């Protein structure tokens, strides 16, 4: 295996509040290979967006990195200065935000926004800027006439694709996406996902894709990271996780949404709701909602155990390992 493009080790993020620090991301380890598609799924408040912002070095107070490293192309980004970061940002990695409606400036044409982005990170002639802008817009299937358009003149799907085009201005090695399709309808969603995947194949960038909808990434991601209460609950090959989820939370998520094919069967969802990170449950953070919780789950905090190439934070699998020894 080649050396990873991105290596996140022991990364923790705290939100500093008057009532004490809240740990939103707790000792997360992940690595992303070049050209890999890694999906991060979890419920709202599980820390997935915070993790993304921590990787992209976009955290702002009250959030701060409490420990760990984010090594991207051999350099620890946590220790870089703003000035050093500016040279990497957008050229080497870019970010597509959740809501294109809010992320694009309503007062500026698409062309002006692309120009701003390029000028902030590079020195290019006006002509070169215009050509590059038209080129990336074409990549995402939007006609170059829309360079003159304002965001409100584009449909939701087109705005979201314009955001992706903007992220590709410098052909980065890594594109970080925070729920880029959540504001779209199913049909537009499906076509955008196919398009992202196709661009990725063509241009070879790696993707970190955050979503709350597991079914969306089933056919597009190589690996899947399931987060719960700020921690990695399960991490492994996407199809393996779908076929044989090890963590009861992953199982619950998979059983939580109805199918449009096959027999109609009753769904239970997962009882209760995600924990308050200011007061996480003792032991395993999932135990109050877990259908197979054991007595020790409320007292013993599980590690990440490696079972057949999958990392899983659940005592059931600690037992399995112990038995095997």
């Amino acid at each position, binding site marked *: 295996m080649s050396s990873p493009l991105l290596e996140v080790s022991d990364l923790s993020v705290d939100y500093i509040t008057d009532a004490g620090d809240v740990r939103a991301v707790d000792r997360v380890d992940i690595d992303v290979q070049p050209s890999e598609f890694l999906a991060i799924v979890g419920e709202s408040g599980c820390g997935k967006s915070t993790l993304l912002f921590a990787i992209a070095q976009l955290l702002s107070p009250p959030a701060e990195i409490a420990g760990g490293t984010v090594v991207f192309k051999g350099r620890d980004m946590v220790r870089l200065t703003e000035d050093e970061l500016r040279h990497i940002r957008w050229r080497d990695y870019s970010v597509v935000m959740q809501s294109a409606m809010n992320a694009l400036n309503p007062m500026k044409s698409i062309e002006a926004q692309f120009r701003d982005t390029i000028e902030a990170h590079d020195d290019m002639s006006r002509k070169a800027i215009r050509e590059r802008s038209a080129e990336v817009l074409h990549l995402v299937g939007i006609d170059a006439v829309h360079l003159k358009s304002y965001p409100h003149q584009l449909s939701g799907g087109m705005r979201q694709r314009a955001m992706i085009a903007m992220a590709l201005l410098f052909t980065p090695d890594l594109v970080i996406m925070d729920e880029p399709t959540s504001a779209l*309808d*199913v049909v537009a969603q499906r076509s955008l996902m196919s398009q992202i995947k196709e661009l990725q194949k063509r241009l070879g960038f790696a993707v970190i894709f955050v979503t709350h909808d597991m079914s969306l990434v089933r056919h597009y991601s190589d690996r899947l990271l399931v987060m719960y209460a700020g921690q990695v609950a399960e991490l492994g090959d996407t199809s393996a996780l779908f076929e044989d989820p090890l963590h009861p939370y992953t199982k619950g998520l998979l059983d939580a949404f109805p199918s449009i*094919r096959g027999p109609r069967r009753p*769904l239970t969802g997962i009882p209760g709701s995600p924990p308050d990170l200011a007061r996480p449950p003792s032991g395993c953070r999932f135990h109050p909602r877990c259908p197979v919780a054991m007595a020790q789950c409320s007292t013993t905090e599980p590690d990440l155990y490696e079972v057949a190439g999958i990392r899983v934070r659940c005592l059931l699998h600690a037992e399995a390992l112990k038995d095997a020894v």
Partner: protein
Amino acid sequence: MANFANGTNAIPAAASAAPASDEPLLQTVGLTRHFKLGGLFSSQILHAVDDVDLTIGERELVSLVGESGSGKSTIARLLAMLYRPTAGEIHYRGRSVHSLHSRRDLLHYRSQVQMVFQDPYSSMNPVFRVSHGVMRNLKLHRPELGRSERREEAERVFTLVGLTPAAEMLRKYPYEMSGGQRQRVGFAQAVAVRPKLILADEPVSMLDVSIRAGILNLMTDLREREGVSILYITHDIASARYVADRIMVMYAGHIVEAGPTEAVLSDPRHPYTQLLLSAVPDPREPISVSTSPAVGEPPKVVNPGEGCRFRERCPLAIEICGRVTPRLTVLAPAHSAACHVAAAAAGVTADSPS
């Protein structure tokens, strides 16, 4: 506490006449709502809902499925009498609701047809306890109840929707509740006044995946236990399948297909329904043959001319589709679609009022 079966609501005479058993609870005829866009002299008209005929039966759980902008929320607001229709009629138990003028009649209709909103974070007043909405609804719509009876009834409906212990839950503020719990408060508020119909506008779309199933189950539960009909509005056809007896598919202001849930899903007649079904991600299935990326997006329906509104995206479009707006036509028992091609395949035509 008042026994539910012997409910003694003050029911206005006209509506209290027992409905014939086969009469729908609610029916719309040619329901239309247009919005004027732009300034004073603008002639741009947005056709949010055009010529919609729909029925909702007693104790029926019907789902209205469509993309954003298709007009499904406008239908909910028309049925709730939050908007006046531009044209067309709404009949509630055989009586046109536009003939309701007295405050008493309107209040009664509004108690019979309750709404649950999409966003449980903004549909509740943050400075009041969650009991506020339920108690207020009870005071307004069930004035016969005294103070302690209202409290008992509030506790009953909170228990019914799974917010237990009810007395404690009623004392909470919205910020102390999760999204799923708040949405349950929304349903409790609606059920408290013993409605016949609940209009649930995307009640799960803002909720986390893990708690959606609970709310979907709550809807089927309320139908069983309270005998209420529900119009479940959603963009998620899989969840519609999970709860609904019948599905209506909306596109660009028109209902393009309607029928029993399994019939619509296993044998979709309208090409839009087919597109919608092919786009639904289903992790349990291998990916279907890749849908062409150039399928486009729903049109904004401003000053539309004659013709099928789906024709620009439709793989089956023929010449007539650009000239004649297809009517919703019965193609199989209880199963209808508004498509010239589908109608021709079934040996009928969709080009004239049926």
